């Protein structure tokens, strides 16, 4: 039974890219990639965080995506909310206009990318991003961030964090295609974005975001792998 399940899982893993590729060819002449993260389905396994680091060779102690843990309530009535974070691929990104050499830009398909050949590593975009989604890579001397695993996307595969999400909390696809999983989620569920007041028009949507962000003083503790330690609100 276990072997059967295992073989089917392996088969599914092999099939997924092919199916996704076919879907892209069939559906999207002009794709616009977005991600929806359903917090009600996130189990806090960190496989997105780990798989991203492995897929993209992210240096130790740096992250392209990470999971924040928000622990609310007092014993015994305690619950945990997991908040996966990544670049929001904003429509009005703060990071793009500040780059002194134009090394970061937004592609037509909605992905904000870094030109690693042009980036001088000044870090201005890191400072400008209100989501803390960028970091200065000490190994390459340039700034780095999530690019939705562009190399996988061009091969017709989904980003590593999506394919490795065991709870199916990360839903990725073309918002221009009404049949895509993201379009269906966006049209059927109430979604919200992080910090809309920044005016950045982020394009990573969350289901069930309120519980992770509406925290009063002393109501919760936060564990963030980027910050280290436990922070009490």
């Amino acid at each position: 039974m276990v072997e059967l399940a295992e073989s089917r899982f392996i088969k599914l893993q092999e099939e997924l890219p092919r199916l996704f590729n076919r879907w892209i060819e069939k559906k999207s002449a002009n794709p616009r990639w977005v991600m929806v993260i359903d917090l009600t389905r996130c189990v806090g396994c960190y496989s997105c965080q780990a798989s991203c680091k492995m897929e993209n060779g992210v240096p130790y102690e740096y992250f392209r995506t990470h999971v924040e843990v928000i622990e609310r309530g007092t014993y015994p009535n305690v619950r945990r909310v997991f908040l996966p974070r990544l670049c929001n691929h904003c429509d009005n990104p703060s990071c793009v206009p500040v780059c002194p050499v134009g090394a970061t830009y937004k592609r037509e398909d909605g992905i904000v990318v870094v030109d690693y050949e042009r980036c001088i590593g000044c870090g201005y975009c890191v400072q400008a991003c209100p989501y803390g989604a960028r970091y200065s890579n000490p190994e390459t001397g340039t700034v780095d961030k999530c690019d939705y695993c562009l190399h996988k996307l061009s091969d017709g595969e989904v980003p590593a964090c999506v394919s490795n999400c065991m709870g199916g909390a990360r839903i990725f696809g073309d918002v221009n295609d009404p049949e895509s999983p993201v379009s269906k989620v966006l049209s059927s569920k109430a979604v919200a974005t992080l910090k809309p007041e920044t005016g950045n028009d982020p394009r990573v949507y969350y289901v069930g975001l309120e519980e992770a962000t509406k925290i009063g003083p002393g109501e919760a503790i936060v564990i963030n792998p980027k910050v280290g330690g436990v922070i009490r609100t």
Partner: protein
Amino acid sequence: MTEILWGSLITVYPFFSGIAAGAYIVSILPVLFKREELKEFSLLALLIAWATLITAPIPLVFHLGSPWRAGNIFIFPQSTSPMALFGYLWIIFLIISTTTIIIYNWFSNTAWFRSTVTALSVIGIVISILFSGYVGFIFGSTKSKELWYTPIVPISFVLSAIVSGAALVGLLYILIWRISRLRIDIQALNSLRKIIWWTLLLDVVFVSSEFIVKTYHPAAVWRPLSELFFRHLGLSYLGIQLIIGGIIPLIVLLFKKSISSPSIMSLMSILILAGVFAYRWNLIIGGQLVIEASPYVYTTISYVVGLLGEGGILWITSIFLVWAFLLSLALVIFPRWKVEVKLHD
């Protein structure tokens, strides 16, 4: 992992760029505003501006992740980026100050001398204000950092630039004139004292009002900021920047008697320079010490400067030594500053 991306090296840059702009403005006051008494040290101020201007980009380049691509800022400047202005402003400022020095040293007897120097000074004053202001704009336009995001920063950067430039001119004027056994002109020093006092007053008012306004921010924002001001930056903000580098010099320099003893003026100049450096430090480092652990959940971290390594005390000291060497070299290869003094006497 939590670390400061813009560390002590980035703090040194606006300190130097401010001094360059401030010293340059002091140097052209006799030309543009007929402040003849300032002629005494106008060429010295120009040489200080020049040496500081050349030194200013050194910490910037060393801080870059890919310093070998530093030239990209000249090749691919993006017009929307305040940082991209650096390349053009720096080059124009350097050309103007170098040309002015050359004209003063070797072409001061020509018929076109005065008109050319005036024209260069008109362009130069605009460039120098932009050069010190654009750095403030880099921080003032960054909405992700609560401490930076304010329109006061570019203005106070220009004001503190003039203060620091004038203070250094005053300090080196007293020092070099004493070493060279020249007579210190009290009238010139008094004029400089007034410039410093008024600009410092405006600077302190702007920075203090900014601080007071911040105390009225929502509790979630003010709480980490108060921790920043009273814990992490307690000494450098309240102590060095506001009291030692602001209020004390304002009280002392209010009285004309303060310049009767050049030692007091020198001491006040040192305090002012320390205060301006602390301002750069508190803004740049302090702004990064407040971090977001989760949306709308803020915490603070600490920053300690090392001895070795990038941005360590040895690095900073080396940059200051390069500046001192360049200034000494400038005083030797452009000797007109001494001649001017004798003519003035």
